[in-house]
């Protein structure tokens, strides 16, 4: 196989192909050996690349002159030319290009999500069949427990244990609930799974139903995910028609059916008690745990709530075994995690990496580094409940416990990368704005405290803050964390605390020097005309939307700071670089 990517083409790969064909013909091997032009191997810096099958040898930096030697020694005599092969240390490099392992996303982008046959061809419903015919409910729970799977919605609670609680709870009716209320800004992991592989979630819910003795499943999904809803509806219909949902599934006497419940897209409804209330038609407000949903959940019956990604892992664990799953990841966090990589990064996208992958690998290898060659500043994980991690955390292996130790959290998997142009006070303000908006208002610390936090941050970004305000932020954050009712309030000050911890000097610069190094806090900026550079062309005065620039032709102009709205139009217009921003 010869790489025909554009990188290798420029290294004469098409001539290499011709040479191989000629050489093989002259050795009378053209009937046995096929020359194939393939897509890029992702090793473009070492082009041209030639791969020999079946032994998988990779030759790098091949030139047309090497062809005859490769054919004579490797193909005819079966002796690879050692010094030209990609060797172990570089072999690792090939691996590095594939740090991702797709388990939850295994079928995403592969199968047609609207065709159940596609899913079945890729082992679909095999796990359900296996569980129903070969394992008892307890055996199934034991497999999940052994696999070490932890809830992917954010908390990281062991899934097997959760199932066991629900299985032990007594009730005439029990429910399996799938939490598809994905609400972190910039997160789209669950949506992608539901849009790309809806049947895997349905299958896992049925498996869960079998273990806990539930016959009914509900998917709580936000109405703002119309495509995911449509594909789920199609999937449910197909599964019912083929007898994989409904009565007497696969002739085993097990009944299970799934319906959808739509949410209006409130962040707090991702919290399981609030979610259950919302499904019951009540206000989406959390209640104190205990009682846990496993004892008294939907309609006061035992209920097990898992996140979409958690469910998507289940069929793979059943099919491939607990040991296989437990072999991936770190000691306490097994398997993989899906992240929605966003922000100032070259390769924005949906990724799935084994637990224990470092932030550096995610951001600089998979993510392709920071946009426009700028400097990395921070990465926000865990959404509004998480925190910002900095350069010193780049080599931290990502797992549930390490991220918490570093002052952030796994969350559901949003990962927003920031560069030198981002003001960390503004970032904290952005998240607080979000939590203020999304707080349900039931408990005072969250309702009032977050609002005060937001106002204080706003004061600082406007250049009116004091050192006491910084202290106030700290104290207030701790009180809100300690006294709020649910997870939303208990975590909402995290963006403030983690930016205070990692970027304290930036807060001080805002307060003491009235300076925003990133240039984002507009009210602190000043546009000034440099007298020595100004030629008096009047271009700036003409473009100024509020008419605050005065000056005669060929004379030095002046900006009236009290009227300036800091739009920057004058600076863009000036051809003489006579306007500076301080």
């Amino acid at each position: 196989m010869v790489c025909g990517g554009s990188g290798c083409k420029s290294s004469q790969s098409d001539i290499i192909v011709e040479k191989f064909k000629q050489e093989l013909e002259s050795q009378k091997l053209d009937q046995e050996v096929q020359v194939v032009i393939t897509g890029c191997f992702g090793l473009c810096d070492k082009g041209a690349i030639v791969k020999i099958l079946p032994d998988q040898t990779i030759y790098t930096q091949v030139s047309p002159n090497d062809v005859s030697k490769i054919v004579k020694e490797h193909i005819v005599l079966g002796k690879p030319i050692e010094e030209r092969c990609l060797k172990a240390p570089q072999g690792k490099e090939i691996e590095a290009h594939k740090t991702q392992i797709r388990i939850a996303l295994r079928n995403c982008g592969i199968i047609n999500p609207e065709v159940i046959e596609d899913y079945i061809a890729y082992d679909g419903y095999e796990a359900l069949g296996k569980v129903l015919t070969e394992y008892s409910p307890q055996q199934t729970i034991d497999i999940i427990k052994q696999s070490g799977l932890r809830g992917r919605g954010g908390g990281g609670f062991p899934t097997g244990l959760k199932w066991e609680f629900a299985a032990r709870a007594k009730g005439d009716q029990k429910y399996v609930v799938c939490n598809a209320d994905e609400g972190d800004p910039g997160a789209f992991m669950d949506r992608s799974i539901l849009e790309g592989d809806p049947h895997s979630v349905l299958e896992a819910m049925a498996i869960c139903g079998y273990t806990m003795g539930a016959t009914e499943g509900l998917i709580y999904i936000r109405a703002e995910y119309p495509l995911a809803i449509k594909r789920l509806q199609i999937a449910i219909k197909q599964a019912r028609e083929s007898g994989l949902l409904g009565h007497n599934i696969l002739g085993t006497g097990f009944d299970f059916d799934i319906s959808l419940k739509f949410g209006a897209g409130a962040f707090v409804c991702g919290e399981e008690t609030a979610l259950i209330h919302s499904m019951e038609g009540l206000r989406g407000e959390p209640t104190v745990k205990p009682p846990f949903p496993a004892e008294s959940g939907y309609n006061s019956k035992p209920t097990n709530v898992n996140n979409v990604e958690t469910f998507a892992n289940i069929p793979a664990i059943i099919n491939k075994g607990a040991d296989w799953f437990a072999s991936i990841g770190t000691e306490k966090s097994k398997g993989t995690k899906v992240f929605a990589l966003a922000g100032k990064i070259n390769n924005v996208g949906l990724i799935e990496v084994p637990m224990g992958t470092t932030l550096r690998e995610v951001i600089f290898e998979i993510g392709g580094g920071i946009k426009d060659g700028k400097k990395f500043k921070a990465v926000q994980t865990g959404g509004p409940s998480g925190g910002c991690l900095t350069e010193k955390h780049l080599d931290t292996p990502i797992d549930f416990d390490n991220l918490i130790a570093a002052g952030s959290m796994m969350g559901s998997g949003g990962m927003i990368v920031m560069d030198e142009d981002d003001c960390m006070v503004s970032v904290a303000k952005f998240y607080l704005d979000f939590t203020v908006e999304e707080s349900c208002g039931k408990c005072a610390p969250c309702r009032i405290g977050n609002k005060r936090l937001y106002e204080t941050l706003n004061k600082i970004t406007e250049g009116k803050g004091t050192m006491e305000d910084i202290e106030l932020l700290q104290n207030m954050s701790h009180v809100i964390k300690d006294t709020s009712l649910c997870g939303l309030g208990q975590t909402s000050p995290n963006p403030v605390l983690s930016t205070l911890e990692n970027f304290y000097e930036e807060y001080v610069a805002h307060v003491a020097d009235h300076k925003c190094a990133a240039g984002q806090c507009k009210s602190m900026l000043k546009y000034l005309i440099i007298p020595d550079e100004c030629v008096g062309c009047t271009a700036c005065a003409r473009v100024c939307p509020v008419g605050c620039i005065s000056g005669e032709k060929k004379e030095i102009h002046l900006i009236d700071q009290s009227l300036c709205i800091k739009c920057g139009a004058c600076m863009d217009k000036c051809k003489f670089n006579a306007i500076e921003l301080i």
Partner: protein
Amino acid sequence: MPKVNTIADLRKLKAELQSKIQKREKAENPESVIQIRVGMATSGIASGAKEVFEYLTEEMVKRNINGMAIQVGDMGYCYAEPTVEVLIPGQEPVVYGYVDVKKADKIIEKHIKQGELLDGIIPPNYQSIN
């Protein structure tokens, strides 16, 4: 789709479906077809994947190509949407990013008809467990 009544039914159906897929992917098999997977999650559709999908479906028929376009979920390369993956029987799959109708035309004319690879190939960056 027939009703699946037992696990034996399910496994039989799976074996049939799998062999059908494998046949499609073998170059020498008379049933083999070219498949173009179009990433059609919300992100893809928002970037115009639907137009590309419809274009490919129509044009492959018009240009007498034994192939089909298939809608699939998110491939993960959201920065380069719309993305398509070209599967030609007997060859390694190739993923292209930033595919609009113009590029889709080139994929049919150059890649599929003449076996010539185009610019903008995205190297696969994950291992599959399938």
